[in-house]
Structures are given as structure tokens and as C-alpha cells.
């Protein structure tokens, strides 16, 4: 019995397309091209599509759109392509679609979790805050080990995803003159107007087809044409405008500052074959003007049993009928507070569905409605309420009672297989509200509507509270003209439009002692009672009610429930609705895939990698790399059979015995140039610079204004007006920004120009007693002799015929040079140096050996010996601070009371009593060997290595009053016991500095 609820031959049915096969919960069905999963299931008579969150009550589809709370499904498209929590009302059918229901076990029809429903009275709002604590003696054990795991397993709607998603996502930034959000009647009219203006227009709608309610409008006509023909013509006209971008399946989900609107476009999920391109696209649109035409959402009525499968929104039934050719039942009852449901009744009756009754909650429905109903032979029950419904997996009957005054009469039970309800319409003010506009409550209309515009936007149509089709079209057109700066109003002739009056909020009158559950938030299982209980318990603001009951916090974000919840809370409080407040409309309007936000920022593109010109050589020579900032640096060069330890030891030993060659290209480099360059350097570094001669280098120390060390590096004076500044690898951009800040904003009178040259120079360090011998054959134009080019000097000349800056500096304590050559020559010069080096059995070494050798020599690394709290004096670097200088950045802070106080942590060396013991970096240091816990540490180990030069372990540490403790024994408490260490000076190798001056 396939598609037995499909009206195949109705002229209004738009689904006459190709049959499609699909599977829901393991059962094969047939649907049609153009169906949603919901319409296809309904065509097969299936209403039961899900189970509720808390009580596991059987639930059918409530709506036909994005507001759907109940019919949530998982769609599986192969490995890694399972998507949970999709709304069946938005899942477009394709051949072979496989979907399953959620939150039930063992099956949708028989769900063991439904036992919660029976115990529902104990699961009132916020019950979990009042219990599950267990006896005090048990501490948190009962909650942590027993209750929480149960709660967690029971909660959570969709299945978890377990595999990486193989799909791709794209991101686009774009601009337009006019962005129109929402493709219903108002949006179409706006697009026609804006399109004619010639302005650049983006027109988006969340659905596959543009048209909104016009897609299922069977009665009205516009400009003498049936509405759907008018729609077709309008869309055809829009497609002729080259300046209008039509974007179906595209949800405007977030409205940010300065007319920045985010859109999510579904590209592939409706296709049977996943394409090669992106599954979804994230659009970020900067629009000069925005038209919000997002329509309105029908409100459910709140009555006992309003959640049984088969109970749904009235207009949804009309959508399924007129747009999808699907009857939602054979015998329906309409319950309404609003005129619009009469259209539903008439259309259904015309399609052969038995409309058993129209229960109108209003005492006096408009006469025009009554005449229409009578003409169609439909029974109208005014002053009606619903006492309860019947049926387990599908509604089978409804109790309708008349209300006189506050008295609810005995119900009349009417058999039915669907109940269609309408509480009226809630304008979708979400985007307006996100634009930071303040919604205004209209007491006469019982609606929140947009107030003044804060950004360049305007609302039009039902989202602004206009419900007559003619008003919607006129308003939309006007909005399109305003947004595009055009004028010339257009008239629309509309006939056959239905009534627009009515509406209610909150729950319908109850029979005394009624026990049925009347739901407000279907997905989160929040009942009217829960909201009243929350108020009773002191939750007087809607934000409290929302959080206490979880109403409006489900995946539909309260699209159908917020106003009813608000009205019930206000009623209980005896306050007006605006006094209770409106919850904020947080983005996104509908959920947006994480992957779409990430876009192409995945894998290697997640974060750029910086590589030096010599990187490829290191790779070819088997280097292991480490991440330093975003750089990849050669860490060590293991030979066959070597582990890291062996490789580093060999590299260190060989460098000190002969020479080592090191890629220092990542060092930050800044060219400081100008007549006031020296004066500027005086301000930015602690050291004196005025008297540094061209051709000489100096170790520079940089502080922040708070007096703490933030960077260091060797700085060479190239001329009176030029410095070659080096910085730490990670610090280069920060230092340049810091320099620019002071230059531009504090010392703008100084004539200085700063240029980052980090990537202009490749830097090859050659360190070791044979360094001079190695580079000498390659260098021209520079006298490398000891006297002509002493330690801490720089010369310009050529290396391998390439213009070069050669610095005689050392970060190892050995005779050393750093050859700077233009980056493009980096690798070839490196290879030439390497070839020379091999004659002396030199090694290539990486950052680990560099770290070891500099620690042996007691050189600090900013970021390792320092952590943003360390002063020059703490590091024993007072010699680098110009005492006679009147000012430099950070100087004033150095004399604050706590910067000169006794007991500051100072850099020292540590030698373990057992030379084989290598301390752990970060380990704490105490005075007592058996340090009890909660004892104050004297400091911590900043660097620790096995020193190949000393043949034992060494460490650097920051220790309170460390320089006064020379020779003292301190302790490093470890889990296995304290390690005794002796405090020594921080320089372990060649303290006199003979070797660097070789």
C-alpha cells in the first residue's frame, strides 16, 4: 500500500514527479521527487517519526518547516557521513535516502524509555536540582558514579558521530547592495523591486524552492493570476535579472555588526550522489542594505495530549496537501484560535478529507469564516477547548468541550486520525533582533514586532506583522525599493486571500482535575505545568523559566514554543508579557554544520607553516623537526641507528671539537634605519647604543613597559644610521609591532624606519674551533682574522660570491660566525659551507643541540628562562642595562618596590649530586629535602640537559635569592623522592670566555 495518502491526480499537487525509493528505520517506502522526508512518510501514512527527549513519548511531525521540534532523524550516506538531528521536514528526498529515528530503544514503536512517561510526575521542572545528591557521607560519589552516567546516557538526542567527516565545505565572502532574506511573497516582491533598480542583489531562502506560502496557496490570486502562476512568472522575471543572485537552500542564520550577515547554503545533501565539491557553503555577506522577509511561524495550541502523533500545525497540513499532494489523515479535527485554519479545513474538505469539526476557541468566530464553513458543510464549534486526546502511536480521538465563562463543559469525543491546530502566528523577528534592534510588544495584536532599525535593514511582510497577502506584497515591494534607492510604488491586486484575524497564547481552558500532559516545548518535553511550577518556585523572568524548565532550548530554539511559554509564565505571575521579558534570539537561526565554519581551514591549511630556505636540505638529510611558533625547525639530525639522545650528544661534541653548522634563518630580523636610529634603539632596548661603533655587535635586551624581559638578540650596527636587529624566532612579529607602536605613537619625531627582514636573509651559523677555517675559503672581501674581526663584530662582503653580512657571534661559547645571505641563495650557500665543513668533520646540528650548548654556556632563552615575570637583574643581566640612560621602555618599572625587593628569583646553575641524574624541566626547588606538600617553592628548573661537554647533567634555574645561595644544597622534590642539587653559577663551559675570542 504505497503512498496511499498521496493525491496523485489533483491538479494542485506539485508532486507528480519521478518515484523515489527510500528507507526509514529499515522499512522501504516510495516517495516522489520534490518530497521532503516528512511529506514522503506522511504520503505513506506514517506520522510517528520520533521520541521525545525526556519522556520518550511517541511523536509525529508537527510542522512542515525549519521550526520542526519532533521529527528529528539521522541520515546516513556512508562511512563518516551520518548526520544526526536533521528535521525530516527539511530533508529533501533522493533516491536511496536512508534515515532513522532517534532516541529510542529497541524501536520507535516500542521504546523502553517510555517508562519515564509513567513516572512523569516525579520528573517535574528542575527535579534534578533537588535530588541525586545522595547522602553527604558519600560525597559526590552517588552523583558522579551512579546518577550522572545514567542521566547522560538517557539524554542526548542524536547518535554520536564517530568517524572523520570526509565531506568538504567552502567559504565565501561577498558584498552586495541589497540582501533579501526570505523568499516568500514579501521577499519576492522586494526582489522584483530591487532587481529592477539594477543594484547588486542577493536573494536567499532556506528552502529548495522560492515562494514560501505562495507554494501552497491554492485559493488566492494575484494580479488576476492564481498565486502559484504569479509566483512562477515572478521567479521567471527575477531570473532574467543578471544583477540578482538567487540562492535557494540558503539560510540567513546570523546578523552581525555593520550589516554583516552569515548564510549557510546546503549544496549536496539533496543529491543522491555526493558531488566532488563542497557539501555546504558558508557565506559571509557585507550588505549595504538588508530586507528581512522571514515570515511567521504558526503557534501550536497548548492542551492535554497535544503531542500525539497526528496532532500537528494546521497550516502544515495545508502545505502537505497543496504542495506535496499529501493528505495528513482521512478524518481530521481542526482546533483553532485563528482564521487561517479555516483555509486548511476548506482545502482538505475539497480534497476529500473528512473534516469532522472545526473547534474554534473564540466565542464569536468572524461571520465570513462561519459562512465559508457552512457552505462547505463543515461543523464549527465555537468557544471550544480541548480536554484531551486519545491514541497511542497515533491520535484516534479528541475531546472537545464548550467553554462558558470559566466553566468547561463535558467533552464530546470526536474520532479522528489527525488534529490540526492553530494558535495564530508568531512573526519571525530573529534576524531583526540579532541586528541589535529592540522588538516592541503590541498589546492590541499580541505580538512582538520589529521596532526602530539599528542597522541598514527593514522588515517586510509577516515578520513585521502583516498577514494580508496584498499588504505583504506591497510592503515587500516597498522594502525592495527603499533598500535599492528606487521609487515608483507598484500596486498588487489580490483576491481570494483568507482571513487573518485571531490568535491565542498560553494554554486552553482545562477540565477541572485534568491530568493530561499539555506540552509547550515538544522536543524538550516541557509542559505547561512545568512552566507554572517554575514560576511558583520563584523563576520570575523568562530567562529563569527557560533555564529552569529548558523550554526553548531544544534544537528548534523555541520557534513554536517561546510565546506560549511566555504567556503561561505571565499568566501565572499576573503580569503582562513584556514585563516577563523575551528571551534573546541567539544565532544561528537554524543549526549550522561545524565543518562549514571550519571550511578549508583543515589539515595543513589549518595554520600556515613557515619553512626556512634550508628546510629542504634538512629534510633530505633526515632531520626531525619541531614546531616553534608556526616555524618548522630542524630539531636534530639522527644518523642510522641513533636516537635523539645519541644524535644530540654527537652534534654537541662534534661542534665543540671541530664545528657545527646550524640553520638560524628563523631568527627574527629587523632593519632599523634612519638618522635617529641610535636614539630609537636607546629607547627600545635596555643597552646603550650611541657609542656602539659601526661594524660591532651587542647583545640587546628588550623589556615591556612593565619592566619584564620580552625579547633579546644580537644587534649589529651597520652604520651610523643603520642597525641589523635580531630577535627570537617566535618574537619577531611581536617585537616589530612593539617597535612600531613606540615609534609611531610615543616617539613620532624620531626619523626612523623599520623593516622586517626575517625572510630576506637566510642565516647559517658555523660554530666551533674550526669555524674560521671552514668559512674562510668561501668568504671574499672580509678579513676574518682574529684582530680584524673580533668577537661581536659584523662585516659586509661576499660568501660564495653572494652579498653577505657575516657576524662573528656565538650562541655556543665557541668561535662562531653567522652568515646572512639573501634567502634565495640560502640553500646553495649552506651546501657550500657544508662541503667545506665535511673536510673538518663538522656536523649539522639542530635546535636541541643548540639548546644544550647555549645552556652549557649559561645563555638564556627568552620564553624558557623567562616567563614574562623576570627582570634583567633576575637573570643576572644588569651588565646589559645602560645605567646612565635617562629612559628606556621598562626602566621606570624596574624601581617599583616589588621589583627590587629581597627574595626575587634569580638565575643560577644547578648541579645534581648524582651527575647522571637529569632534572626535569619545570621541576620545583625547595630548601628542605623532605618537603611536605603545601610548601613554598624557592623556584623552578628552567633548563636541564645532559651536558656532553661536562659529561654530566646541568641545569639552569630561577631560585629565590639564588645568587646568595652559591654552594648551598637545595632539593628538587619528585614523586620518587627529593633530588639534592648544588647551586652554582649559570655558566658551565669556559666561564672566562676564551673560546669565543679564539
Amino acid at each position: 500500500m504505497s503512498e496511499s495518502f498521496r493525491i496523485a491526480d489533483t491538479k494542485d499537487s506539485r508532486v507528480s514527479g519521478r518515484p523515489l525509493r527510500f528507507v526509514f528505520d529499515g522499512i522501504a517506502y516510495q516517495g516522489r521527487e520534490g518530497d521532503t522526508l516528512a511529506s514522503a512518510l506522511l504520503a505513506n501514512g506514517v506520522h510517528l517519526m520520533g521520541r521525545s527527549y525526556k519522556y520518550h513519548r511517541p511523536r509525529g511531525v508537527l510542522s512542515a518547516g525549519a521550526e520542526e521540534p519532533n521529527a528529528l532523524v539521522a541520515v546516513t550516506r556512508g562511512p563518516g557521513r551520518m548526520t544526526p538531528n536533521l528535521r525530516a521536514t527539511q530533508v529533501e528526498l533522493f533516491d536511496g535516502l536512508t534515515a532513522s529515528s532517534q532516541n529510542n530503544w529497541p524501536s520507535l514503536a516500542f521504546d523502553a524509555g517510555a517508562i519515564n512517561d509513567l513516572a512523569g510526575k516525579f520528573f517535574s521542572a528542575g527535579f534534578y536540582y533537588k535530588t541525586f545528591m545522595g547522602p553527604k557521607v558519600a560525597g559526590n560519589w552517588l552523583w558522579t558514579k551512579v546518577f550522572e552516567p545514567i542521566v547522560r546516557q538517557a539524554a542526548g538526542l542524536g547518535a554520536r558521530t564517530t568517524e572523520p567527516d570526509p565531506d568538504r565545505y567552502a567559504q565565501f565572502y561577498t558584498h552586495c547592495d541589497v540582501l533579501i532574506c526570505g523568499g516568500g511573497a514579501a521577499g519576492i516582491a522586494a526582489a522584483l523591486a530591487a532587481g529592477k533598480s539594477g543594484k547588486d542583489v542577493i536573494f536567499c531562502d532556506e528552502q529548495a524552492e522560492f515562494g514560501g506560502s505562495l507554494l501552497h496557496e491554492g485559493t488566492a490570486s494575484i494580479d488576476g493570476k492564481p498565486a502559484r502562476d504569479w509566483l512562477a512568472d515572478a521567479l521567471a522575471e527575477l531570473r532574467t535579472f543578471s544583477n540578482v543572485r538567487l540562492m535557494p537552500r540558503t539560510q540567513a542564520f546570523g546578523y552581525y555588526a555593520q550589516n554583516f550577515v552569515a548564510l549557510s547554503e546546503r549544496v549536496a545533501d539533496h543529491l543522491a550522489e555526493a558531488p566532488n565539491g563542497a557539501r555546504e557553503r558558508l557565506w559571509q555577506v557585507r550588505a549595504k542594505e538588508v530586507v528581512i522577509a522571514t515570515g511567521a511561524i504558526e503557534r501550536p495550541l497548548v492542551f492535554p495530549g497535544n503531542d500525539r502523533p497526528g496532532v500537528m500545525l494546521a497550516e502544515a497540513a495545508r502545505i502537505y496537501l497543496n504542495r506535496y499532494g499529501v493528505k495528513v489523515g482521512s478524518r481530521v479535527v481542526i482546533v483553532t484560535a485563528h482564521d487561517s485554519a479555516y483555509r486548511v479545513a476548506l482545502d482538505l474538505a475539497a480534497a476529500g478529507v473528512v473534516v469532522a469539526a472545526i473547534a474554534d476557541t473564540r466565542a464569536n468566530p468572524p461571520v465570513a469564516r462561519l459562512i465559508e464553513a457552512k457552505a462547505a458543510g463543515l461543523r464549527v464549534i465555537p468557544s471550544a477547548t480541548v480536554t484531551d486526546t486519545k491514541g497511542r502511536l497515533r491520535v484516534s480521538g479528541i475531546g472537545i468541550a464548550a467553554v462558558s465563562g470559566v466553566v468547561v463543559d463535558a467533552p464530546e469525543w470526536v474520532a479522528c486520525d489527525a488534529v490540526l491546530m492553530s494558535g495564530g502566528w508568531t512573526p519571525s523577528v530573529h534576524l531583526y533582533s540579532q541586528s541589535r534592534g529592540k522588538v516592541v510588544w503590541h498589546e492590541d495584536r499580541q505580538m512582538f514586532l520589529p521596532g526602530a532599525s539599528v542597522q541598514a535593514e527593514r522588515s517586510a511582510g509577516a515578520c513585521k506583522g502583516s498577514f494580508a497577502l496584498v499588504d505583504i506584497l506591497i510592503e515587500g515591494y516597498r522594502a525592495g525599493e527603499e533598500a535599492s534607492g528606487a521609487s515608483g510604488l507598484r500596486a498588487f491586486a489580490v483576491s481570494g486571500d483568507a482571513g487573518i484575524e485571531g490568535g491565542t497564547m498560553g494554554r486552553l481552558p482545562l477540565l477541572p482535575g485534568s491530568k493530561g500532559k499539555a506540552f509547550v516545548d515538544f522536543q524538550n518535553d516541557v509542559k505547561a505545568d512545568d512552566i507554572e511550577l517554575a514560576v511558583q518556585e520563584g523563576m520570575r523572568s523568562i530567562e529563569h523559566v527557560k533555564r529552569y524548565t529548558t523550554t526553548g532550548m531544544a534544537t528548534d530554539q523555541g520557534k513554536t514554543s517561546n510565546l506560549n511559554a511566555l504567556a503561561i509564565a505571565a499568566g501565572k505571575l499576573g503580569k503582562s508579557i513584556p514585563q516577563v521579558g523575551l528571551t534573546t534570539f541567539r544565532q544561528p537561526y537554524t543549526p549550522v554544520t561545524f565543518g562549514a565554519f571550519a571550511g578549508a581551514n583543515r589539515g595543513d591549511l589549518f595554520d600556515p607553516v613557515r619553512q626556512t630556505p634550508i628546510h629542504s636540505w634538512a629534510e633530505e638529510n633526515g632531520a626531525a623537526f619541531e614546531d616553534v611558533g608556526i616555524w618548522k625547525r630542524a630539531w636534530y639530525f639522527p644518523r642510522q641507528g641513533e636516537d635523539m639522545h645519541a644524535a644530540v650528544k654527537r652534534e654537541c661534541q662534534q661542534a665543540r671539537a671541530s664545528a657545527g653548522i646550524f640553520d638560524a634563518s628563523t631568527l627574527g630580523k629587523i632593519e632599523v634605519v634612519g638618522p635617529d636610529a641610535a636614539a630609537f634603539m636607546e629607547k627600545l632596548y635596555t643597552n646603550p647604543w650611541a657609542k656602539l661603533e659601526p661594524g660591532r655587535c651587542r647583545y640587546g635586551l628588550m623589556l615591556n613597559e612593565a619592566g619584564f624581559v620580552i625579547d633579546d638578540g644580537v644587534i649589529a650596527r651597520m652604520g651610523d644610521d643603520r642597525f641589523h636587529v635580531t630577535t627570537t624566532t617566535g618574537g619577531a612579529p611581536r617585537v616589530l609591532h612593539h617597535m612600531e607602536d613606540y615609534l609611531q605613537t610615543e616617539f613620532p619625531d624620531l626619523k626612523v624606519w623599520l623593516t622586517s627582514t626575517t625572510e630576506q636573509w637566510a642565516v647559517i651559523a658555523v660554530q666551533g674551533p674550526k669555524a674560521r677555517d671552514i668559512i674562510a675559503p668561501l668568504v671574499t672581501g672580509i678579513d676574518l682574522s682574529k684582530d680584524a674581526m673580533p668577537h661581536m663584530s659584523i662585516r659586509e662582503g661576499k660568501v660564495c660570491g653572494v652579498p653577505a653580512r657575516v657576524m662573528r657571534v656565538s650562541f655556543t661559547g665557541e668561535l662562531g660566525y653567522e652568515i646572512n645571505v639573501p634567502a634565495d641563495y640560502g640553500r646553495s650557500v649552506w651546501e657550500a659551507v657544508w662541503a667545506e665543513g665535511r673536510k673538518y668533520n663538522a656536523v649539522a646540528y639542530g635546535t636541541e643541540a643548540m639548546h644544550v650548548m647555549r645552556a652549557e654556556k649559561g645563555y638564556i632563552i627568552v620564553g624558557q628562562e623567562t616567563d614574562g615575570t623576570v627582570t634583567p637583574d633576575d637573570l643576572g643581566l644588569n651588565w646589559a642595562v645602560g645605567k646612565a640612560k635617562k629612559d628606556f621602555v621598562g626602566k621606570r618599572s624596574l624601581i617599583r618596590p616589588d621589583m627590587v625587593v629581597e627574595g626575587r628569583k634569580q638565575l643560577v646553575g644547578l648541579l645534581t649530586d648524582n651527575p647522571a641524574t637529569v632534572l626535569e624541566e619545570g621541576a620545583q626547588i625547595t630548601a628542605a629535602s623532605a618537603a611536605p606538600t603545601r610548601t613554598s617553592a624557592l623556584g623552578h628548573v628552567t633548563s636541564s640537559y645532559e651536558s656532553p661537554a661536562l659529561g654530566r647533567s646541568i641545569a639552569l634555574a630561577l631560585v629565590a635569592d639564588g645568587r646568595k645561595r652559591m654552594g648551598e644544597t637545595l632539593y628538587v622534590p619528585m614523586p620518587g623522592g627529593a633530588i639534592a642539587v648544588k647551586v652554582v653559577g649559570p655558566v658551565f663551559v669556559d666561564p672566562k670566555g676564551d673560546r669565543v675570542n679564539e
Partner: protein
Amino acid sequence: MLLIRCPYCEMERPELEFRYGGEAHVARPLDPMATSDDEWADYLYFRSNPRGLHAERWRHINGCGRFFNAIRDTVSDKIVVTYKAGEARPATTGEIA
């Protein structure tokens, strides 16, 4: 994402091209060593942090590289005006949008 007008480039560019630089018109004392600890702390750390119009520094770091100032409403994030570094703070109404 804010849209910020660089007064040097004379163009509106997206926030990603800029770096925020904290409150504007917090001038470094001309002679820091002559300040008291309190005065120095005030310069270093104490900020007006207003709810409303805020004069603040931005740098067009991924553009011209220049520092400039902006007056922004910290409630709506709307930038009222931008102006070059060194220029006086323009008169603005105290209203919060």
C-alpha cells in the same frame, strides 16, 4: 566582523586587517623617572573602560601598518569616527546608540 575606516588609506576594511591597541590618549609620561609609583601604575594599567564611547587605538597591521585612533561605542560596537594618531580626540556626543 567590524568594518573599520583607516584614516591613512581612506578606506573601509574588515577587522581582520587591523589589530586593536587598547585605550587611546594614554600618553607615556615625558619623564617616567619623575613619576610616582601611583602615577606610573595609572599610566601602565588603569583604564577608563567605559560603557559607551571609547577612544581607542587600532593599527592597520595588514595594510599600511599605521596606528590610528577610533571612537567606538562599546555597547553597539559602532565606530563613530576614526582619526590619525596625534590628532586630538574629535568632539562626539555622549549618546550611546
